[in-house]
């Protein structure tokens, strides 16, 4: 369509009726609801927390959120987002609570509780309606925490036909983390990051990096170490510890204490979670012309602690719209990478590493402008799980997801 310019046609008298513009300072209330159910056909694998024959098949993908924003002055507003997940018995949690201040037309300063902008979908990960999948691939989005308390600075800019957004964030997180089904007290200090988004036409590009200093309350089991010193076979003692229901990272830390007994001090000290750095890197590209869309994203995580193995994950997805239906196909993979040298040898002995891939085919059907029905099938292939060959299985999910 050609665009051409002409000034106002004076074909009617100027009318100045009493009309109302929705007031900018009103309370803005938004919300989202995800209702989902799944079926997993293989008992020997767990995909995220999807398990075969789980009576809670309805709770995993069911959650809701309510967000309220209020303008306090021309430049300042406050936002609170509460979420309730089926998995957590719909206990209400505060996922966002911040005050935003516009320093100028293109720069916002926010402080309070924010979401960590790890990867492309991280800041709206819970809002199913916002993307085509029931939820983004766990291979890439398997980070067990999402929020932090701190501040960020968001600067929007344009040059020529490019638009962009630069985000700097800093803060900390002092709340328990659930890892491998067990809870750990944790402190994530000096959470700092930078994210750049660039847009041109149908293209979008994202690069980001986050880093933090991790503290977990994991510890070696002294009774087990004592028994080994007394002459008990280490394999038997560690097996008994694992069987006792000890937390997985505690077991690994106990085993590491045994395996590193003769190693250098630096190797020994690698296997704890006291002030250990973690770094997250992300690159994403996407393209969307309204009918076809494609996106690729890679996420690299480096852990200074030997107890957590570095990970490289990526996904590639393509989607085609047919009227109200959008068909999409996605490949994603996650590969743990043990360190080099002594630390890596011990990581292999601890059998911490895993590798898997997932093929997903799905359809999103837009029932109306705010409601989508989704069905998708995923073939999940565990090449390696805790250092051993894994198996594969299929996960089927359907969901009704809406925003208001």
């Amino acid at each position, binding site marked *: 369509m050609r665009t051409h310019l002409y000034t106002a046609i004076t*074909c*009617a008298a100027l009318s100045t009726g009493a009309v109302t*513009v929705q007031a900018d300072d009103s309370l803005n209330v938004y919300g989202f609801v995800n209702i989902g159910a799944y079926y997993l056909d293989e008992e020997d694998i767990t995909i995220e927390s999807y398990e075969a024959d789980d009576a809670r098949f309805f709770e995993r993908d069911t959650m809701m*959120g309510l967000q309220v924003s209020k303008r306090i002055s021309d430049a300042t507003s406050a936002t609170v987002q509460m979420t309730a997940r089926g998995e957590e018995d719909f206990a209400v949690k505060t996922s966002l609570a911040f005050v935003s201040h516009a320093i100028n037309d293109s720069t916002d300063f926010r402080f309070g509780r924010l979401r960590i902008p790890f990867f492309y979908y991280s*800041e709206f990960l819970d809002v199913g309606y916002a993307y085509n999948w029931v939820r983004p691939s766990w291979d890439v989005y398997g980070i067990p925490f999402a929020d932090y308390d701190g501040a960020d600075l968001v600067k929007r800019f344009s040059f020529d036909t490019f638009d962009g957004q630069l985000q700097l964030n800093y803060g900390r997180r002092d709340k328990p983390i659930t890892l491998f089904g067990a809870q750990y007290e944790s402190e994530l200090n000096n959470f700092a990051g930078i994210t750049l988004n660039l847009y041109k036409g149908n293209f979008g590009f994202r690069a980001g990096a986050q880093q933090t200093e991790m503290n977990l309350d994991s510890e070696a089991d002294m009774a087990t170490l004592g028994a080994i010193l007394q002459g008990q076979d280490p394999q038997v003692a560690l097996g008994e510890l694992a069987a006792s229901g000890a937390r997985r990272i505690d077991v690994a830390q106990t085993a590491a204490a045994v395996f590193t007994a003769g190693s250098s001090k630096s190797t020994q000290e690698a296997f704890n979670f006291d002030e250990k750095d973690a770094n997250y890197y992300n690159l994403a590209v996407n393209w969307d012309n309204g009918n076809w869309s494609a996106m690729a994203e890679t996420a690299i995580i480096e852990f200074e602690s030997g107890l957590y193995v570095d990970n490289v994950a990526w996904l590639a997805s393509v989607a085609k719209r047919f009227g109200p239906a959008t068909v999409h196909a996605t490949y994603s993979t996650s590969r743990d990478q043990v360190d080099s040298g002594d630390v890596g040898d011990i990581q292999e002995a601890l059998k911490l590493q895993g590798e898997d891939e997932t093929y997903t085919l799905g359809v999103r059907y837009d029932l109306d402008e705010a409601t989508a029905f989704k069905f998708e099938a995923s073939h999940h292939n565990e090449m390696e799980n805790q250092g051993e060959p894994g198996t594969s299985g299929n996960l089927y999910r359907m969901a009704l997801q809406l*925003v208001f």
Partner: protein
Amino acid sequence: MKRIQALAAAAAMSLASSVWADVAVIVNVKNQNTYTGVEQDLIQRIYLGKASQFPDGSKATPYDLGKGDASRQLFVQEVIGKTPSQLHAYWSRRIFSGKQQPPRTVDNAEAMKAAVAADESAIGYIKSTAVDASVAVLFTIED
């Protein structure tokens, strides 16, 4: 006299039935960019919250019509290049990450004209038959 001409013009335009569905993209009459024009691509970026300035560097504030409005259907499809659902999904990402609010909505063409007439930074759109001297037209989207 002018009024009679206007009525005649309106009558002539109505002969082409499709003209009733055409949508005019409008700005405030004081907007300097009407002399140089505004690329459709820039209007798309302004409505997607990516760009916030007109070509002359002045601030651009987009106004939207409500969901289901016939003019909005055409505008979203032709200028923004998305389906209403895709646009809603796009804004959901920005709203729920707490970063941006979508354009303010007004109830109808009259409210849109009033809003654009009252705000020098405004950009909006209305059915072309509702255009009057209170606003300046950037271009018309033919149905």
